[in-house]
């Protein structure tokens, strides 16, 4: 693995360097789902209001007053990452990202847009399903031991600012894995239950985005607050905003907002529609489960194996990948032991180890496992696709492997199986 389970800024900078060596963007035909499909979940929307961009700081303050630790986007090490934001000054005003297969660059915008980028390398799983967590510790007591339960919860509930539609979909996917099955993960549950989400709808897409084809964005279905940032129009730099929960409405009530005009709402909607419209990548999800199940043997797997470095980046940046391993650590005396859970990846050889050897030794079997799980068996396991179309796996792949292109190649079958 090139990266440690927890992606550090330095490591990402190295990846950006690798990205620079990667080839040019491969443009796929965009096939956009209509917004009619994406909307209409039956939740009555609160009245749209307008929050001036200059008042963003007051939103952050209101959250803090309610006891939240505010996490949002900020520029660090050449990328927009999620971290603690103290004030609106920490937000990436005037920055945007330029993404392609194996390529990520920050660029200056010619306006002061606060959320004028697509998505960075990190997702909110950094906070909800953390890269490392101590499950418990134990103390030796003679020949036996005592287990001490561990408090793995943050001191304050977290408020996430700038959550994208695809990321909300990803959180919903992880909810189904870690909360809605036979067992519940109490660590995830505690972190998730406290989290306050302020969604910001995308008004631009990166070249790697394909949420529209996955039916996960760019329109936001549910969050505590939903914002759409408008800039450079007659109404000035502002957010068209609405609350989608009671606690969202409570926070909202503390802010200096004005009623939105019909024009404001129309403009916001058009901006999001434009983001959907400019997506150049897509996955044709029709019958995709059967497609991948039926193509366990396909020359394309060997083809992709010729490029894949099994570095596991795709799984680390994926907002839905949930695999973990456990690691026992003990101190020098050997009297104190801790059990840690850490992100793991199906791209490692050890992932499938059973005594005698690993089940998936070849690169092709590991890529196939990842993609087939993400797009096919996930549906059988959890009732939805494991892919939300955020495009991170395309951007952060050091050799620019593009999941949308790989699906298309499998679909092409014999015709284009071994280009």
């Amino acid at each position, binding site marked *: 693995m090139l990266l440690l389970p927890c992606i550090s800024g330095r490591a990402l900078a190295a990846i950006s360097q690798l990205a620079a060596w990667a080839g040019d963007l491969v443009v796929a035909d965009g096939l956009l789902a209509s917004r009619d499909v994406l909307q209409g979940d039956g939740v009555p929307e609160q009245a749209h209001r307008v929050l001036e961009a200059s008042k963003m700081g007051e939103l952050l303050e209101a959250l803090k007053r309610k006891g939240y630790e505010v996490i949002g986007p900020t520029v660090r090490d050449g990328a927009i990452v999620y971290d603690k934001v103290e004030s609106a000054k920490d937000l990436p005003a005037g920055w945007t990202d330029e993404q392609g297969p194996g390529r990520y660059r920050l660029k200056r915008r010619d306006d002061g847009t606060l959320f004028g980028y697509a998505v960075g390398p990190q997702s909110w799983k950094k906070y909800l399903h953390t890269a490392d967590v101590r499950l418990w510790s134990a103390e030796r007591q003679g020949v036996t031991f005592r287990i001490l339960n561990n408090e793995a919860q943050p001191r304050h509930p977290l408020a996430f600012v700038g959550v994208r539609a695809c990321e909300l979909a990803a959180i919903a996917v992880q909810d189904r894995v870690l909360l809605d099955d036979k067992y519940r993960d109490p660590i995830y549950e505690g972190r998730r239950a406290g989290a306050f989400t302020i969604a910001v709808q995308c008004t631009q897409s990166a070249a790697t985005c394909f949420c529209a084809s996955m039916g996960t964005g760019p329109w936001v279905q549910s969050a505590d607050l939903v914002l759409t940032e408008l800039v450079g129009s007659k109404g000035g730099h502002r957010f068209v905003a609405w609350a989608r929960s009671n606690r969202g409405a409570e926070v909202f009530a503390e802010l200096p907002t004005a009623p939105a005009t019909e024009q404001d709402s129309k403009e916001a909607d058009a901006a999001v529609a434009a983001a959907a419209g400019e997506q150049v990548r897509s996955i044709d999800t029709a019958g995709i489960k059967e497609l991948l199940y039926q193509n366990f043997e396909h020359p394309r797997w060997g083809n992709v194996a010729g490029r894949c470095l099994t570095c596991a980046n795709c799984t680390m940046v994926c907002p839905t990948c*949930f695999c973990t391993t456990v690691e026992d650590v003990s101190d020098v005396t050997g009297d104190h032991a801790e059990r840690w859970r850490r992100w793991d990846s199906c791209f490692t050889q050890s992932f499938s180890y059973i005594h005698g050897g690993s089940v998936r030794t070849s690169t092709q079997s590991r890529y196939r496992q990842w993609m087939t799980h993400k797009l096919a*068996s996930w549906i059988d396991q959890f009732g939805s696709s494991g892919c939300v179309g955020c495009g991170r796996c395309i951007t952060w792949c050091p050799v620019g492997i593009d999941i949308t292109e790989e699906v298309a190649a499998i679909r092409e079958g014999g015709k284009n199986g071994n280009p």
Partner: protein
Amino acid sequence: MMIMATAITTDPMLPQPYSVREVAKETPDTFTLRLDPENAVNRSMFQPGEFSMLWLFGVGELPISISGDPSLHDRLVYTVRSVGQATHSLVNRGVGDGVGVRGPFGAGWPLEAARGRDVIVVAGGIGLAPLRPLIYQVLQNRKDYGRLVILYGGRSPRDLLYRKELATWARNRETQVLVTVDYGGLSWRGHVGVVTTLFKYSRLQPTRSVAMVCGPEIMMRFVTRELETQGLSRDDIYLSMERNMKCAVGFCGHCQYGPHFICKDGPVFRYEQIRNLLEKYEL
């Protein structure tokens, strides 16, 4: 009785303290451990075919099938083959040593489906261990089942598990126990040959039989083909599968087997469910 698919709310990652009560040598490399709970007495309930995660201080955790009698609730019994560092450490525990136990986990043998029918147990090597609780259950409720046929293949006579018990089981009514080894010496008067060669001595009645199979995957593939040849329906054949496991509750992703999680959907699967996966290399 299967585990119900309702949510389980206690922290499934926290081990319960048990201590080693007894370690018995089965073969040169395989041992049976009895663990007793350190606090509550009545907690060691399990269904045949289920497994636990056993944690050793300073070593780590490993999934082990329960091999004891499900009617004894004061203990958990495991038969462990020492094949690596963790299993070596486990079988070398002394009496009184602490072991952390999580579980039981998984979906076990379908005792309900077997009720009133002939039960065909086909085991290879250490694969007899997860089947032993089922054998106990059938023998303790003998009238609830038809014939019990146990076909057991081992590597050599000295690698056979539970030799005394096999002889005892054979004395029960309507119970046939056939044992074979791959490599027999001159002092071995039993069968030599793979486990599939035993079928011709057991005269199965395929339509009234349910088969439970556990052993190395290659062995199970041969056995399932033989069971089909014998006329058993794919729906009446059950296999216990093995993959890497870290959490045992479906969170860690390691044990995925196509669309299934071995830990929570298995380890016991109906053959029909996984037939198409068994032949897939590097799945």
